[in-house]
């Protein structure tokens, strides 16, 4: 009997480019280092990144799913492994496993308005969706991108946001929780942008990503504006050690975030969302 591939063994990928985004967030662009490669991914999925001798972390893919072999990950340094990752440079090799998880509902969204609400690092897992929407613009109705960051210094992908804003066929609203320096833009939580956003709640799909508490209030506001709960999608996060449904860490009620998520229609996890310590 042929040996079963072990889903826990990573494939070597080489850093093509390391880019600093903000004081604690950075982007890695990766290409295969050997003949092995991961299969094509969909927006919303994630990989497990292995750093030699340090550990492994789940990171959402933040690049263009139609961009061939290049794999892009935007990460915030919040723990041991991600902090060590800040020392990576072009030419360094890391291990990759994936892609894992359920994708954002791009197919379902075709023909409808799309409301994207991102909080903090949550913009990274949504960027692949934005790329797809903009490259296939005609397939979608109105597109609204709402982005909330902690302070102006924490705003990700500034150049890209500027280029999105220049377009006439989408609405981009950015806000910060706290203003610093010369900020002249919006101040206030991202939920406050929703009421002003131009979309038809009866024909819209919302995709929300950010800290759980931010997603919760965003979902409430979206529903207040008339979007039904089965048209709202969120991306959940839990501790992960394997990403293949064996280690048990990522369980959220009966769902394994690694294979039943991370993207869920809100309706499916509505009952769990308000439960504490679940």
């Amino acid at each position, binding site marked *: 009997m042929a040996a079963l591939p072990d889903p826990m063994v990573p494939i070597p990928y080489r850093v093509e480019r390391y880019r600093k985004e903000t004081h604690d967030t950075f982007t890695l662009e990766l290409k295969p280092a050997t003949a092995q490669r991961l299969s094509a991914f969909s927006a919303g999925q994630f990989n497990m990144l292995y750093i030699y001798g340090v550990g492994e972390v789940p990171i959402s893919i933040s690049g263009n799913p139609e961009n061939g072999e290049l794999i892009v990950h935007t990460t915030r340094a919040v723990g041991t492994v991600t902090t060590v990752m800040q020392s990576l440079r072009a030419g360094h090799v890391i291990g990759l496993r994936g892609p894992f998880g359920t994708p954002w509902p791009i197919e379902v969204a075709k023909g409808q308005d799309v409301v994207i609400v991102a909080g903090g690092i949550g913009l990274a897992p949504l960027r692949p969706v934005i790329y797809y929407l903009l490259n296939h613009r005609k397939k979608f109705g109105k597109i609204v991108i709402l982005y909330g960051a*902690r302070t102006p210094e924490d705003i990700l992908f500034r150049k890209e946001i500027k280029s999105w804003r220049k377009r006439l066929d989408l609405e981009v609203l950015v806000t910060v*929780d*706290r203003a610093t320096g010369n900020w002249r833009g919006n101040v206030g939580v991202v939920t406050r942008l929703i009421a002003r956003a131009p979309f038809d709640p009866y024909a819209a799909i919302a995709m929300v990503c*950010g800290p759980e508490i931010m997603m919760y209030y965003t979902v409430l506001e979206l529903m207040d504006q008339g979007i039904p709960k089965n048209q709202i999608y969120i991306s959940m996060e839990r501790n992960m050690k394997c990403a293949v449904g064996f280690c048990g860490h990522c369980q959220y009620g009966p769902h394994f975030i690694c294979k039943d998520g991370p993207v869920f229609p809100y309706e499916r996890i509505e009952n769990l969302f308000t439960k504490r310590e679940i």
Partner: protein
Amino acid sequence: MEDLKRLLASHPFFKDMKEDHIAFLAGCGKNVRFEPGEFIFRNGEPAEKFYLVRHGAVSLEIFVPGRGAVMIETIREGNVMGWSWLVPPYRWHFDARALELTRAIEMDGKCVRKKCESDPSLGYELMRRIAAIMQERLKATQLQLIDVYRKD
């Protein structure tokens, strides 16, 4: 007056309010306009007005010694600004500065208070709406307070 009644009725704050109530209140209002950078009100000044923003953007700020003006929220079209006219000692608690060309309806607080006293049903209606706005602001402020994007 006709013009103002129409403007009031079209502002979200007065949505679904009875026509005669709006007409009654229109007597307290007037159209105003602020240039970019102009102060609409300042912390500590007597607060006798509230504003229904129709166009533009206003920054609510607190000036912190050593830090300068700290922007706490942006008020845009469709929003209402100011409720210090309701509660003694009727003084503003922040600065409000226009970020861009801003047009608003300025409602005279004393006038509105008088009208509310003579018509309690109008008073109740107004209170209801203002309470809703305060609640929304409070929720948003609380969310800002818990600093959702912090690392730990």
